[in-house]
C-alpha cells in the first residue's frame, strides 16, 4: 500500500512526538561534542510545524513537505535548521502534486532531500554528520526497492541502515560542523544530527508498519 497524504501527516506528527520525547537525549549528545542545543532546536522546529498544521490542511504531499521545510527554516536556526529545512523543501518539490507515494517515489524523495543537505552543508559521508545516517539509508532504500519488497519493508530497511549509520559515527573524527573544533576529542561520541535523522526515518517506518 502506498503512503498517502494522511500517512505523511502522520509521519510528521509522529516525528514531532519522537523529537519531543528525545529532546534531552539529543541535547545531551550535543553537549558532548557541540553546544547542547540540538534537541531543543529540533523540538522547537517540530512543535512549530505541529502548530502550523493545526491551522491548515495541505492539499498534497508536496505542499505538506514544503510547509514543513519552510517552517523548519524559519524556526530551528543553527546548522540543523537550514539542513533539515532544505531537505524537507527539496522533498516537497520532488513530490509536488502527489497524493500517494510508492516505494520508488520514496527513494526519489529521499534522494532529493539528501541532495539538498549536501548542497547546503557541503559535507560528504564520513565527516560525522547527519549524512552518515542519511546516505546509507537512501542506499538501503534503493536496494530494497529494486529487490521488490513491500513499502513497509523498504522503510524498515531504510531506518535500520540509518541506525547503523548513526552508530558508525561514534568512532569517526568530525571534520564538519561544530564537533570538528574538537579534533580527535570528537571521537567516541555519537553525532546528534545523525541521531535525529535516524529518529525521523524510524518514525516513517513506524507509521508505515501501523497501517
Amino acid at each position, binding site marked *: 500500500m502506498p503512503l498517502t497524504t494522511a500517512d505523511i501527516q502522520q509521519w510528521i506528527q509522529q516525528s514531532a512526538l519522537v523529537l519531543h520525547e528525545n529532546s534531552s537525549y539529543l541535547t545531551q549528545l550535543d553537549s558532548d561534542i557541540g553546544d547542547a542545543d540540538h534537541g531543543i532546536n529540533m523540538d522547537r522546529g517540530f512543535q512549530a510545524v505541529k502548530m502550523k498544521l493545526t491551522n491548515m490542511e495541505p492539499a498534497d504531499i508536496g505542499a505538506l513537505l514544503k510547509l514543513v521545510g519552510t517552517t523548519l*527554516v524559519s524556526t530551528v536556526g543553527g546548522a540543523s535548521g537550514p539542513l533539515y529545512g532544505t531537505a524537507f523543501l527539496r522533498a516537497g518539490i520532488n513530490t509536488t502534486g502527489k497524493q500517494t507515494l510508492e516505494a520508488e517515489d520514496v527513494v526519489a524523495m529521499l534522494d532529493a532531500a539528501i541532495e539538498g543537505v549536501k548542497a547546503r552543508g557541503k559535507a560528504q559521508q564520513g565527516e560525522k554528520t547527519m549524512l552518515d545516517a542519511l546516505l546509507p539509508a537512501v542506499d538501503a532504500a534503493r536496494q530494497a526497492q529494486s529487490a521488490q519488497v513491500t513499502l513497509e519493508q523498504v522503510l524498515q530497511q531504510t531506518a535500520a541502515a540509518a541506525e547503523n549509520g548513526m552508530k558508525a559515527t561514534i568512532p569517526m573524527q568530525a571534520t564538519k560542523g*561544530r564537533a570538528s573544533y574538537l579534533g580527535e576529542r570528537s571521537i567516541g561520541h555519537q553525532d546528534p544530527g545523525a541521531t535525529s535523522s535516524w529518529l525521523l526515518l524510524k518514525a516513517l517506518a513506524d507509521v508505515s508498519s501501523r497501517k
Partner: protein
Amino acid sequence: MKKLINQPENVVKEAMAGMAAAHADLLRVDLEQQIIVRKDAPFQGKVGVISGGGSGHEPMHGGFVGYGMLDAACPGAVFTSPVPDQMLAATQAVNGGAGVLHIVKNYTGDVMNFEMAAELAAAEGIDVQSVVTNDDVAVQDSLYTAGRRGVGVTVLLEKIVGGIAETGAPLDQVAAMARHVNEQGRSMGMALTSCTVPAAGKPTFDLGDDEMEIGIGIHGEPGRRRMKLTTATEITDLLTQPIIEDLGLQAGQQVLAFVNGMGGTPLMELYVVYDALQRILKGKHITIARSLVGNYITSLEMAGCSITLLRLDDELLRYWDAPVHTPALRWGR
C-alpha cells in the same frame, strides 16, 4: 541550574524586552520578528551593517546596535544561529539603498542561515555582501575542520566597520574593510568553568576543580585540550603565543589588545590577565596602541577569558577611535 530567569524558553524574548525598555532612546526592538534595530534606521545612502548569532553572548550583538556600529542585530535562541527570516527582516529594516553588509561568525549554522537570508534579500533586489569572521587560532584552519570560529575579532570588526559605514562609504569599501579587519586579528580563549544553556538545565561539560579547558569557543563547546589549572601569567602566555605567531606580529608593530571575559569572571581578574598580556607584548616590543578589557563576547555565565590582538594601521585606528554610541560601547558622543 541557578539563573535569574522565568521560563527558559522565554529568556531571549524577555531580555530583548528589557533592552527595549532600557535603551528606548537608541533601539527599536521588534519582538515579533526578533530583531534589534537602530532607532533611526534606515539611513538613505548609508550602507546598513547587521550581524546576528545565537543569544548568550551579550552584550554582542544587540548591545552593539547604535550610532557608529551596527544598524541591526538578530538574536537567535541561546547558542543557536538565528533564522533567515530574522536576517531578512533586519536587512529590510536597515536598507537605505546603499546595500547591506552581513557580518557572520564562522559557524556552520550561522553561515548557512545567513546564506539563505542573503539569497532571499537578493531576490528582493537588495544588494547584500557577507563577511565571515574566523579569528580563533585554537581551531586549525584545515580540511579537517569547519574552519576557524569567529570570536573576539567580531566585536572589534563591528566597531571599525560601523565607523567607516557612518562616513557614507560604499558597500564594496565597507566589505573590504571588514575583510581587512578580520585578516589583521586573531583570538584564543579558555574556560575555568562550563556554562549552562537555560533550556538544557545543566552544565554543558564538567571540569575538575583543578582543571581548565584551553581553546574553547563561545558556545560552551569543550576546548581542544584540558589542562591542569595554572597561573594567570602562564594562561595568558598559552593564549597569546599562538596569536602572535599566527598573526606574524613583529617588533615595532602596534596592536589593539582586547581581554574579554566569558561572563562569569570578575573584572579584577581580567585586569590581572591584561597586566600579564602587556608584559608579554612589551617584552616583544609590540606596542599596545588601544585596549579593551571587559565582558563583550561572552558565553553565558562561563568563567574564563579570551585574548584578541588586532594589528592596527592608521585607518583601523581612525575608525576605532570614531564616535560610537551603543548600549555597550560608547565614546566621542
